[in-house]
């Protein structure tokens, strides 16, 4: 059978890749995608711990569903912000959006 450590290791790797993407990419869209990767890594952890440690109470799956809702709202608002900034500034590079007001 598959031990729990495999899942935890895999999700740690996915999370670190997402972290690298969020820190290193310039494009705001790419940063958003990297954040989605990190949220997915968290979800795998939640479900894996539910399956291996507490299979009787369904808390892991319920929490994962809440994370889905958070990811969906985050993507919607984030993409709306990107579109709005692109309309006004014609850029999607995160480091060029450094004025707090314009």
């Amino acid at each position, binding site marked *: 059978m598959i031990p729990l*450590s495999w899942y935890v290791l895999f999700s740690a790797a996915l999370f*670190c890749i997402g972290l690298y993407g969020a820190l290193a990419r310039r*494009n705001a869209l790419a940063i958003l995608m990297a954040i989605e990767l990190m949220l*997915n890594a968290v979800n795998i952890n939640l*479900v894996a711990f539910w399956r291996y440690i507490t299979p009787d109470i369904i808390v892991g799956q*319920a929490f994962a*569903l809440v994370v889905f809702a958070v990811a969906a709202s985050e993507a919607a608002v984030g993409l709306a912000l990107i579109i709005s900034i*692109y309309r006004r500034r014609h850029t999607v590079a995160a480091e060029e959006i450094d004025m707090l007001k314009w």
Partner: protein
Amino acid sequence: MLSLLQIAFLVAAFLTIVSAIMVVSTPSMVHAALWLILTLAGVAVFFVLLNAGFLAVVQIAVYIDAIAIMIIIVVMLTQEATRQRIRQVSKTWWGAAIAALILFAGLIALFTQTPALAVDAPTLAMSQEALLEDLGTALVDVNRYIIPFEVASVLLLAALIGSIMVAWPLVRGKDEEVDA
């Protein structure tokens, strides 16, 4: 000797990790979005392996059908800025790489000191149908997770209204474009 399930896990893990690396490294945004879809599908495979079939289908419905398509639409809308071959990583990308590697090494060091992680999966007491039903009732049960469920729905409503407000078309004369 690896069992069939273990082979399935390793193949899915390899594909998912490779496509996740492609998401953060490919210069074209359209290709990054495509690799993201492959990563998300790979994560759905893990949900199936973990006996959470419902979450696997929700993963496809929410992530691939909604979020990935939205991302591709925004890539389409911002094509002018993304199509030209500009530098895609910031100057201090090596710092980010070191930070990610240190975090990964730290996590592995932590895992090796946790013997509880070597456990095998206990057999599930409930059938798949019963699990699904339990999840459904748990989300609306007053004594269980109704508060997070309601908060999530309020959050979704706020995101709906907020994203419409933010992405509302510019009004000429009211808020002029600054550097046009």
